[in-house]
């Protein structure tokens, strides 16, 4: 027995080794192709100059030509993406490394290596320029985050999140800017020329917590929902503050002086930017939801509406210099409940997977490009500046979190403990947004110095904090996310508790949190849902939609695993239904032949269901038993019952129990 297991373990290690070799080999091939292609592009134009001299000789018909310029751009883009994905694949083949080092760190290292390689062969490495980042790489990640934002914990903690995002970021920016200015003046020399406004600009760039980095690290540590939503929500909402501060200080840096009027206008600008962004997002969200109401005949293009409306929301907000991130979040959150009620199950799965896919690719590319830009970019290293920046980032974050929590806890029902505060402070990672904003700076005399400092801070937070946060979470025994799916009982009690607490607030006599939530829900049900959800789904209460989703999931599981598989749970309806005494006497016996016939019908029906799921063409989707589930729900439930019964019949008939009796009960249920 032991010899066999050794062999298997050895084979598995061998297999993994083979996989690793395979991946390394393909990466090498890719790099070689890339280099060859890059160098060939230099040779290509030269061919043209040879033509005039060859005109006297008649060349044969060219069998094989080389024309790289034609496909250069898409080829290189595809090559980069492929490289990124192969790297991602490679990390998961080596289990030990991926458990210690978060993926983001590994990707940056790969970026560094690739950047170094490209520089070594004398090519110019592509930099993470701001158009590419802000218009193409960032939106998928934010849309993915916004669309799947857990709305309930977010709205329950929105006060705390806003305080951290707005006040915390302001504190960070001003504290860092001010202290950096002081340090620069003290240090003298090269740094003395840095004025206060430049320092404040630098502070505003470096102070914002980055959603990409937070997502990348927090995704792997599975921390409890409250902390996750606090840090993540903060990273999303501080975009408005960052946008305003950045433009403010950029303008002032150019002009040189600040007046009180400018200060007041800045505050107004903040409100315009954030509320405007939310409004734009909400409008596009409502439009998207409304459009999805009419897509019942063109199911194939449903996911595209979601993506396009959201992207338009982002771009429209960027046109007016409003907060694009907040607009995207607002669009996703607004659209989601209505779109999910309207679209088919397949479209829902498509939306989910495409969002995850795009955000995954974007994230990978961002980190790799960050590494490449580090190697490529011009650097100006100054020990004092960089070290003070890194230290100050940590210090100001910790001070900010502790101070704000002290104030916030006076207003919270569930207070934040010291452990929570530590995780919130430690999880404030900086990332690619800070780097890109630095890149966007116009030719400022201190630009390279700032860029170097920003890159160092980003590296420090992602590497040091990213790597150590997981063991720290284990060490401090912070509560983890519960892995189990929500059960129907929890859903019932969530609803029950909502109504109970609203009622008790009514008895107490003050309009609290639950009162307003209840009012909003009622407004939503009576007016909004009627407009945005097609058909009779608009009247469906949440409990019923939850139950339907659960039923469908179970039914699909049952059909996919086939009727011979073990069903979850060994308790069935008959254990909880109160027994009816007279049942045994009124059931007539059915013959063996009839039983066979019924069993045959059930089996063929089950096979039919399996076949229908297997094919679809590009333009139509064949009637799928799980499409349009609101119409077929009861039929589906009946079918599920029959599947269950089929299984029981097979098990029971051998034991010689009164199978006919049971069979008859199920096929012709006496009690509804």
């Amino acid at each position: 027995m032991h010899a066999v297991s050794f062999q298997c373990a050895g084979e598995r290690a061998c297999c993994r080794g083979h996989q690793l070799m395979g991946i390394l080999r393909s990466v090498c091939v890719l790099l070689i192709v890339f280099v060859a292609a890059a160098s060939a592009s230099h040779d290509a134009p030269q061919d043209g100059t040879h033509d005039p001299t060859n005109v006297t000789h008649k060349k044969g018909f060219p069998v094989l030509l080389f024309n790289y310029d034609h496909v250069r751009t898409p080829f290189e883009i595809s090559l980069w993406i492929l490289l990124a994905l192969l790297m991602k694949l490679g990390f998961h083949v080596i289990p030990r490394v991926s458990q210690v080092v978060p993926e983001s760190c590994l990707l940056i290292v790969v970026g560094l290596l690739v950047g170094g390689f490209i520089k070594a062969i004398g090519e110019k490495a592509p930099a993470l320029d701001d158009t590419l980042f802000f218009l193409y790489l960032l939106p998928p990640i934010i849309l993915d985050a916004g669309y799947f934002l857990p709305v309930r914990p977010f709205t329950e903690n929105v006060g705390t999140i806003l305080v951290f995002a707005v006040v915390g970021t302001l504190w960070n920016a001003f504290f860092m800017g001010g202290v950096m200015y002081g340090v620069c003046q003290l240090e003298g020399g090269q740094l003395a020329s840095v004025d206060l406004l430049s320092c404040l600009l630098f502070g505003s760039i470096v102070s914002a917590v980055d959603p990409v980095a937070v997502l990348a690290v927090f995704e792997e540590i599975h921390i409890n929902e409250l902390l996750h939503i606090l840090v993540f929500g903060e990273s999303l909402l501080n975009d408005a503050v960052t946008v305003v501060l950045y433009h403010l200080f950029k303008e002032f840096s150019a002009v040189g002086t600040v007046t009180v009027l400018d200060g007041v206008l800045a505050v107004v600008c903040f409100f315009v930017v954030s509320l405007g962004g939310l409004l734009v997002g909400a409008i596009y969200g409502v439009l998207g939801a409304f459009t999805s109401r009419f897509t019942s005949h063109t199911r194939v293009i449903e996911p595209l509406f979601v993506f396009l409306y959201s992207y338009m929301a982002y771009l429209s907000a960027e046109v007016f210099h409003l907060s694009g991130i907040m607009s995207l979040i607002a669009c996703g959150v607004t659209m989601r409940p209505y779109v999910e009620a309207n679209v088919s199950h397949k479209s829902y799965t498509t939306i989910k997977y495409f969002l995850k896919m795009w955000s995954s690719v974007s994230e990978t590319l961002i980190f790799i490009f960050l590494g490449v830009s580090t190697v490529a970019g011009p650097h100006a290293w100054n020990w004092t500046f960089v070290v003070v920046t890194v230290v100050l980032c940590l210090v100001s974050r910790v001070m900010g979190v502790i101070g704000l929590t002290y104030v916030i806890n006076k207003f919270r029902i569930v207070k934040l403990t010291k452990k929570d505060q530590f995780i919130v402070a430690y999880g404030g990672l900086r990332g690619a947004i800070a780097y890109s904003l630095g890149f966007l700076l116009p030719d400022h005399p201190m630009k390279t110095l700032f860029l170097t400092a920003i890159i160092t801070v980003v590296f420090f937070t992602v590497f040091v904090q990213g790597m150590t946060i997981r063991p720290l979470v284990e060490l401090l025994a912070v509560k983890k996310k519960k892995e189990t799916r929500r059960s129907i009982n929890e859903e019932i009690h969530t609803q029950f508790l909502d109504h109970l607490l609203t009622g008790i607030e009514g008895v107490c006599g003050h309009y609290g949190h639950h009162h307003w939530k209840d009012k909003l829900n009622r407004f939503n049900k009576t007016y909004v849902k009627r407009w945005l959800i097609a058909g009779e789904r608009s009247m469906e209460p949440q409990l019923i939609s939850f139950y339907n989703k659960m039923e469908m999931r179970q039914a699909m599981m049952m059909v996919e695993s086939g009727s011979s598989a073990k069903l979850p749970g060994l308790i069935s309806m008959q254990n909880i239904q109160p027994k009816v005494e007279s049942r045994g006497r009124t059931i007539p016996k059915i013959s063996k032949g009839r039983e066979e016939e019924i069993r045959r019908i059930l089996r063929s029906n089950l096979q039919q269901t399996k076949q229908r799921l297997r094919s679809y063409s590009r333009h139509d989707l064949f009637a799928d038993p799980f499409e349009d589930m609101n119409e077929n729900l009861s039929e589906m439930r009946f079918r599920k019952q029959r599947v269950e019964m089929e299984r029981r019949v097979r098990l029971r008939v051998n034991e010689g129990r009164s199978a006919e009796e049971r069979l008859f009960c199920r096929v012709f249920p006496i009690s509804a």
Partner: protein
Amino acid sequence: MGALNSLPDEPQYVGLAEKTGFSFEQIGILHKRFKQLSNNGETLRREDFNTIPDLLCNPIRSEIIEAFFDRRNFRQTDAVGTVHEIGFGEFLLVMSHFRPPSIRLDDEQKEVIRTEKLRFLFNMHDTDNDGTITLEEYRHVVEELLSRSGALGKETAKGIADAAMLEVASISMGHMEPDEFYEGITFEHFNKLLKEFEVESRMNIRFMNMDTTTLCK
């Protein structure tokens, strides 16, 4: 200390504060509310709750009102049955179930508070006082929750309640023979069922420390 002299029934407040854990200011405000609801009387009856407009559109309003008159919620051991009218003390005792737990509690005290809140929920479901929630009682709960959806609600309420009971049974009992019958959800099963629910942090409302004059009437 000067502020305390202006509150009426001060010695009574001390006893209540100890029993329920509310602060003096909170008790004062709740007393004002109690007087408002009972029209300056000494006791509250079921009809007095009908004057609260918010409760009228609440689907589980009858259960909420019953909970105030249920002797099991008065923290007297082994008391069952309902009363027709309650005094301020009982009002406060029922309200104290919704007080948020203090941050300085250790795990054991947190467990006690959690059990208390779960017990309150259990009593609300178990309307016949027999210590178990039967299928009929659970069906009634789900029907009430869906009561504003008309006929659609009635059919699926049964299905939902059945699915929920199945889940409880499989979590608590694991495996049952086909002719065994699951009597109902006992308090231990209820506890096990809602283990992940974090009721101690969710079943709270904010009690004001300052008197807000905009009380709804």
